[in-house]
């Protein structure tokens, strides 16, 4: 077995082992601990990880499982593709980034991220200007923070992420259902819970 490690994110120090498959189908999911921080990892053969659909999905799913398993826990996610030659190099990165990680853990303590996209009909009856302010106002009312994402398609009228308490998801879901009722000509896509990618800002230098 390889001693290289693929890292998903950082949690409060904990010995965790989950029997689920991660990136490149590797398991188990384990933790590498440095002082008060644990990185969530799986073994990996090659540190250059290919960005396939399966791998990016596995990255998200491991983070979601870590976030929701048991009573749930706070996760500071890493971007896709962070692989380390050994536990030692990973720990040295955790040492270097420990303040940023601690601050990020505090910022997103007990929170999850949810995504809302609104897609207009092909005839273009609704415009971004028609919907953005109203939808944003309703969703900001049931969340803590909002982040705008790329509107990569003409059809995409709205694409934002929201940070909220794990326990506040039901109220948020109800607000999304109301959107669906009030905008029958649009399609609302509601995703998550995700690890709070859009609300942490930890930069890790490549090894």
């Amino acid at each position: 077995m390889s001693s290289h490690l693929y890292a998903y994110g950082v949690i409060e120090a904990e010995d965790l082992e989950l029997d689920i498959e991660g990136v490149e189908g590797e398991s188990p999911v384990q933790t590498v601990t440095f002082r008060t921080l644990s990185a969530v990892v799986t073994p990996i053969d090659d540190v250059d990880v290919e960005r396939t659909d399966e791998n990016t999905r596995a990255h998200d799913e491991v983070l979601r499982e870590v976030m929701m398993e048991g009573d749930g826990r706070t996760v500071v996610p890493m971007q896709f593709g962070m692989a380390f030659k050994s536990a030692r190099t990973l720990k040295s990165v955790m040492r270097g980034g420990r303040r940023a990680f601690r601050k990020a853990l505090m910022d997103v303590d007990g929170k999850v991220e949810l995504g809302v996209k609104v897609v207009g009909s092909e005839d273009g009856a609704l415009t971004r200007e028609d919907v953005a302010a109203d939808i944003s106002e309703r969703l900001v009312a049931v969340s803590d923070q909002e982040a705008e994402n790329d509107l990569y398609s003409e059809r995409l009228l709205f694409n934002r992420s929201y940070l909220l308490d794990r326990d506040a998801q039901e109220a948020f879901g109800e607000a999304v259902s109301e959107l669906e009722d009030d905008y029958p000509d649009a399609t609302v896509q509601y995703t998550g819970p995700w690890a709070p990618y859009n609300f942490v800002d930890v930069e890790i230098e490549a090894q």
Partner: protein
Amino acid sequence: MFLLDDILLWPITNVVDVLHSLAVQEMYDTESIQSDIKENQLLYEIGERDEAEYERERARLESELDAAERARERLSDKVVVQR
């Protein structure tokens, strides 16, 4: 002639260079292909495109992206604006 050399020709060469690099960006606009890939994914997820259509479009866009990336790499050396 001083005027022609320094004031007229200078801007012309620059404009040509800029036009060339704009054309390269336009022809091999990887970002816009990536947006199309994401749009295809979105329309599939909301049920507006069926799986066959989605897979066909995805394969087409991915090969387009591949070609654009290779073309950009090849051309990027030649589009250095000389001043």
